[in-house]
């Protein structure tokens, strides 16, 4: 069953990569003890999702959706791009805030290791 699934997946190899990235990120978020490491994992997850959305909007041999002389259809769908631009900002904002919190946590508790923090409680 598994090989069949992989066969079926071949045209969607991009999606497979996205899934792998997503899981790597999630792994870091769950398993890693260091808050910054968790945050890095989160960022990887985010990029995975972005990659998924952009990939879904891509078209075989398509040009960027910028019209102009010599630009011929098919064009990649502009909508996912716009979404991802927003997504990137959201990711940036989340990361910045998370880092701010991490700094504060470090200043207050002297550590950013999750298990040590748990013990502090």
């Amino acid at each position, binding site marked *: 069953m598994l090989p069949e699934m992989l066969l079926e997946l071949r045209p969607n190899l991009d999606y497979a990569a996205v899934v792998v990235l997503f899981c790597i990120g999630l*792994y870091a978020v769950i398993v890693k003890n260091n808050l910054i490491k968790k945050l890095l994992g989160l960022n990887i997850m985010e990029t995975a999702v972005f990659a998924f959305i952009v990939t879904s909007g891509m078209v075989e041999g398509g040009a960027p*959706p910028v019209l102009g002389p010599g630009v011929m259809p098919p064009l990649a769908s502009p909508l996912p791009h*716009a979404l991802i631009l927003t997504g990137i900002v959201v990711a*940036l904002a989340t990361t910045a805030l998370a880092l701010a919190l991490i700094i504060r946590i470090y200043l207050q508790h*002297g550590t950013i290791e999750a298990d040590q923090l748990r013990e502090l409680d």
Partner: protein
Amino acid sequence: MKKPLVIALLILLALALLAAMAELPAVGQADAPVHTHVSARYIEQGEAETGAHNLVTAVLLNYRGMDTFGEVLVLFTALCAGFAVLLAAARNGNKHYRQPPAPQESGAVPVIAVSPVVSFVVRLLAPFIALFAAYVILKGHLSPGGGFQGGMILGALFIALTLVLGKQYSARLLPVAWRPWLYALAPAAFLVVGMIGLQLTGYFLGYPQEPAWHGVREAMMVTLEIAIGVGGAVLVASLFLALESD
């Protein structure tokens, strides 16, 4: 102990995700719904309806202006959030505040030690980068790029300069008294332009379609681009400053 379990679960999750994604339209197929439904109209009529060659900009500023408004708000929120979290808590007799522990040796070493070469290069390239950013911002509706991308570049430049030249310089570049106004620049621009659109077309964030008004439409878009660019840059830079201040 914990790790194998997590890995096993993640593999299961991955399989589930793969199974689901296998059903999605194959990558790159031109007849996928992504291309035939909403996007098709953007591609076919986007230029005519918005006057933007760059359809991404058309989507960002015209079709889905609300999203972009939200986006700048997110950035603004992040900044305020950063301030709210980071600004000193000790004043005002907050009894919950605990004195930070003495800095540890490993952490005391500044991580970003700027070498003279880098410093020189940054200073040398700064005007060109700024120019490039301005181009990206202003021509965003015509070519790849746009207010946001340009703003990010501008912000990155600002950060680089601050790192290289120190905070005094950043204060000159971005006067403290202006900052609160600049934070509000991008969202406020959306409000203003949106209201103008409301006046002109009867819709918030509407753009006049009549040929006679194309100039106005372009002006509105460019205004937004600039506001997003400058505002975005300021927000990003301020985020950096906020984090860095401690």
